[in-house]
């Protein structure tokens, strides 16, 4: 695993911060170990918030509905899905309907009194909707409108605190609430890692991002380059430069979490024994 930031228990305050766990939505990630760990933490009095993705479930539903996703390329060469209205509807059904309910069910069956929330609920994750995106098509730069995406700028951590205080474990799902004006919003797609980062920042929590690899690699093709800890600014900058593709998002999420107030961030493999407890041990 890769740890970012300082160890949260070393500050001497004695205050144990909540834990935010990001569970991946890829099929390669089995949530069973994570669910057991959350149950263990909660049984020991630790406050836990789970944030999940679900891209595999979204892909499956789009496929079953015969919706062909449009993938577009940004000027800097990143490829992403364009979330039109029809895709957005399927995204909401799969994420907030299916994956969230399944995970809440698994948690409840493990003895955790889970409450599922999307980022729309109580404006939990709110930010401007991005409708227009810059894309490159046939070598031409274009503005494409009608995207449903956004980045959370405000977290309603009061809603999470209220639920945590009553012994519930919030299970948070995209979409977020994307504002189109001062007072009107709509559900929009948002990256679950960034959502988890925003939640961890809002709660001053330790963030554990579970994924299907052991951590962040300086060179993704070389397992020997796993980075164990990023403690100094220089190490951090070097990592940001080194991270590629899929890992760029994890590093960005870690950065955003720490900048917005998270106590620590660990990127760790979901498919090991006690994945969250191991990550917290390392971090704490």
């Amino acid at each position, binding site marked *: 695993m890769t740890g970012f930031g300082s160890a949260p228990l070393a500050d001497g305050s004695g205050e144990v911060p909540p834990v935010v766990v990001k569970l991946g939505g890829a099929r390669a990630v089995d949530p069973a170990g994570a669910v057991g760990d959350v149950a263990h933490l909660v049984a020991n009095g630790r406050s836990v918030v789970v944030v999940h993705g679900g891209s595999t479930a979204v892909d499956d539903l789009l496929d079953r509905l015969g919706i062909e996703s449009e993938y577009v390329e940004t000027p800097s060469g990143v490829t992403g*899905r364009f979330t039109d209205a029809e895709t957005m509807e399927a995204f909401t059904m799969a994420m907030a309907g299916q994956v969230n309910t399944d995970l809440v069910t698994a948690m409840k069956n493990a003895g955790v009194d889970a409450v599922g929330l999307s980022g729309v609920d109580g404006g939990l994750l709110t930010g401007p909707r991005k409708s227009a995106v810059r894309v490159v098509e046939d070598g031409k730069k274009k*503005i494409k409108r009608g995207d449903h995406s956004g980045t959370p700028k405000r977290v309603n951590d009061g809603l999470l605190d209220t639920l945590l205080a009553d012994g519930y474990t919030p299970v948070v799902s995209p979409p977020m609430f994307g504002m189109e004006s001062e007072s009107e919003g709509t559900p929009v797609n*948002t990256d679950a890692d960034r959502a988890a980062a925003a939640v961890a920042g809002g709660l001053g929590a330790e963030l554990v991002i579970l994924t299907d690899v052991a951590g962040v690699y300086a060179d993704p093709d070389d397992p020997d380059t796993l980075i164990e800890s990023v403690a100094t600014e220089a190490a951090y900058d070097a990592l940001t430069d080194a991270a590629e593709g899929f890992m760029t998002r994890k590093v960005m999420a870690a950065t955003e979490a720490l900048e917005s107030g998270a106590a620590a961030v660990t990127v760790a493999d979901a498919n090991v024994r006690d994945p969250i407890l191991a990550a917290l041990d390392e971090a704490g």
Partner: protein
Amino acid sequence: MTEAECVECGGTVALHDDLEIGEIVDCETCGAELEVVDVSPPVLDRAPELEEDWGE
């Protein structure tokens, strides 16, 4: 080859024929990025600054 006026500097921007709505062209006079908001006749507007950022 058609042309249109730059909304930033008033200069003339040369445009190729298979212009599409949404396309971004650069003004060679002032360097502004301009969005094609209509094609017949061509109308240009200032292209919005947009963060590059993908959801999900």
